[in-house]
């Protein structure tokens, strides 16, 4: 019962935040709405017993990525851009395509909904927590992808520094 209420609350937060992100005129409003949407998604992670991802979402996305976005919004002068046309010329075509894909998605999801009824009560593992299970898998089975991910982050750091530098 409480899960239902919390699910709809967080889902509303995520959806309203997402719609405002896409439609807001000012980039700062858009970033703030995106933070609202990310908080909603973080709550949904918590609701699904993914506590580690909840913490990662709050610390890394809302604390890291969104601050980076806000920094860039302050750095780049967006006042002129906010006064101009916000949507490109193909917006009607894009809307039609999205409507078509949405109809397809929800048709197939409604047909397959019966397959997902069992998940109502997932067996709770009291012995070990979510973070422990995650670490076990990450540092044994997925050790090589984990190391490659760290390499990818290094490449991203070097790449973004070179991109933002004045003279290469």
């Amino acid at each position, binding site marked *: 019962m409480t899960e239902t209420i919390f699910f709809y609350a967080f889902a509303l937060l995520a959806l309203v935040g997402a719609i405002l992100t*896409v439609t807001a005129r000012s980039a700062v409003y858009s970033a703030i709405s*995106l933070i609202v949407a990310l908080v909603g998604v973080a709550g949904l992670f918590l609701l699904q017993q993914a506590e580690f991802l909840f913490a990662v979402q709050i610390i890394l996305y809302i604390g890291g990525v969104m601050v980076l976005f806000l920094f860039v919004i302050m750095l780049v002068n967006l006042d002129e851009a906010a006064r101009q046309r916000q949507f490109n010329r193909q917006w009607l075509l894009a809307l039609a395509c999205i409507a078509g894909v949405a109809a397809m998605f929800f048709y197939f999801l409604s047909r397959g909904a019966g397959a997902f009824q069992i998940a109502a009560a997932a067996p709770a593992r009291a012995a070990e927590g979510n973070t422990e299970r995650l670490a076990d898998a990450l540092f044994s089975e997925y050790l090589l992808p984990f190391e490659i991910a760290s390499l990818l982050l290094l490449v991203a750091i070097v790449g973004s520094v070179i991109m933002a530098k004045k003279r290469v």
Partner: protein
Amino acid sequence: MHPITTSHYLVLSAALLLIGTLGVLTRRNIVIILMSIELILNAVNLNLVAFSRHLDQVTGQIFAIFVIVVAVGEAAVGLGILIALFRNKETVHADEVDLLKW
């Protein structure tokens, strides 16, 4: 009230994905396009976590971590490109960058 099942999460994730795609396709401001991409990747993460719980396996959450890593790298490099673009062309609109168009 009905109990919340995995398909609830799938529907929500599909809706978030569609909203994000709409933002990528229709907006002109590159900053907002990058934020819409973050929205899309979050929808994917929601889907992965929903299936991770549905199957009672932790693999989906590990994939979600990798998706977050890629999203962070994408945001950093994308914003670096945006700063370089703004320095050279004084615009943040995606449809004004048409040097390779003929």
